[in-house]
């Protein structure tokens, strides 16, 4: 069964949400029930695939084990960069093996189970935040529950462990829960509209008019694919957030009107927000600080450009090892760097940035750049080579 896609999933979701709703109304904690429900969904989505389930179990033991061992070491020995990087690498190792060790055809790939890409963000962030001193105690139940929480375990949004844990401890009042459930149902229906109606329409348009290998065909493919991607993923994300609410978890939103962005920095604040903010907080800012520490680079701008390219290159690679993903990441890394340089250096930009015509122009250029990025991401370019 595919989560948020198959009709059987939605039936299960309705049935299994009713007890959560009753617990919420009674002002009881939903965490134990939510955990059990998540286990059931893991079984429903992967139960037919024994190797996947075994890999998932090994993975969870590995990651949790790494986190508690590192937590002890951090407490005893303090902030040691060497130990930190070792444990960070260990937490990413299963995902790296999964991506880079080729799977046998028709066989199972190493650590091939649903959700490993998204779970690894959470596993790595726990290690990073132990190093930072923000996480003092990992806790078995909150850790496992965060990893397998069913609305988000396959494709996010990526939550933060401190935030998730806070929701586990705070039981909302009946009025608060009803508000939350209302917001949740709205998101689920809007998400359905996005994914089942709008994404499907753009997909049809793409298949019908966009497959011709010509300039017009390519342009139609580019725009229809871009909108398809948005409605498909934003629709899924809305439903995942909505379903989380019913279980008392305020999973963060993933999209905020990305196509109205005036520059690419703004775009990444509005598109796949939980992913880009994860990279901002755990990659970009840290790469920048490490670069500043070397004292080899005089200008802040140079630091930013290198950090943008490393950051977005990694983000591209995370999507998969195909060259189109890396290309997509580097494309955005380079464009973000150029945006930064342009906005810092250009007198023209500083002079006109508040005028209306300039803002319309900025919007127009940004929109095209975004769509070109999606075209690269789609891998469709290969058909033209």
């Amino acid at each position: 069964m595919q989560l948020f896609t198959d009709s059987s999933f939605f039936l299960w979701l309705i049935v299994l949400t009713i007890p959560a709703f009753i617990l919420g109304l009674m002002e009881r904690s939903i965490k134990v029930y939510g955990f059990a429900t998540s286990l059931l969904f893991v079984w429903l989505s992967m139960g037919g695939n024994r190797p996947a389930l075994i890999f998932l179990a090994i993975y969870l033991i590995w990651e949790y084990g790494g986190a508690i061992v590192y937590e002890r070491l951090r407490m005893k020995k303090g902030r040691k960069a060497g130990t930190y990087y070792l444990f960070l690498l260990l937490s990413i190792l299963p995902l790296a093996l999964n991506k880079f060790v080729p799977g046998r055809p028709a066989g199972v790939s190493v650590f091939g189970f649903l959700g490993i890409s998204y779970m690894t963000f959470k596993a790595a962030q726990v290690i990073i935040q132990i190093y930072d001193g923000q996480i003092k105690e990992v806790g078995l139940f909150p850790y496992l529950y965060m990893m397998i929480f069913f609305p988000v375990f396959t494709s996010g949004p990526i939550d933060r462990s401190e935030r998730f844990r806070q929701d586990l401890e705070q039981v909302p009042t009946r009025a608060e829960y009803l508000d939350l459930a209302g917001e949740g149902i709205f998101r689920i229906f809007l998400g359905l509209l996005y994914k089942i109606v709008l994404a499907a329409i753009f997909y049809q348009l793409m298949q019908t008019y966009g497959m011709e290998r010509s300039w017009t065909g390519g342009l139609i493919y580019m725009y229809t694919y871009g909108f398809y991607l948005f409605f498909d993923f934003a629709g899924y994300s809305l439903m995942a957030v909505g379903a989380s609410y019913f279980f008392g978890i305020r999973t963060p939103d993933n999209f905020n009107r990305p196509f109205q962005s005036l520059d690419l920095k703004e775009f990444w604040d509005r598109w796949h927000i939980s992913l880009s903010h994860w990279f901002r907080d755990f990659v970009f800012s840290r790469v920048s600080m490490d670069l500043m520490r070397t004292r080899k680079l005089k200008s802040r701008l140079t630091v930013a450009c290198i950090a943008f390219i490393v950051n977005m290159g990694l983000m591209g690679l995370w999507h998969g090892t195909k060259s189109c993903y890396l290309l997509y990441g580097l494309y955005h890394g380079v464009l973000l760097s150029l945006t930064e340089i342009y906005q810092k250096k250009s007198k023209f930009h500083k002079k006109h940035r508040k005028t209306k015509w300039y803002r319309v122009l900025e919007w127009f250029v940004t929109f095209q750049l975004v769509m070109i990025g999606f075209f690269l991401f789609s891998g469709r370019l290969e058909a033209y080579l």
Partner: protein
Amino acid sequence: MEEMEKKLLDLLTEICEDDVVKEEPDLNLVEEGLIDSLGYIQLLFELEDRFGIVIAPTEYKREEMDTPAKILEIVKRKADAK
């Protein structure tokens, strides 16, 4: 303490490239366009480098660090806790 306050304001002036941060403690640095993400990262780096105060990028939200007064308050608290 006063020594540190002066040093911190010098640092903010350096990062924001504007003396105004010394005069208006409640000025919103983000809204005024005086500090951006990279400015914040530089601030965290310099705090560690010059003051030995470690603040993780995820420790505070932007709204908690958007005026000279708020930043000063956090730095003082961190220095006391050391």
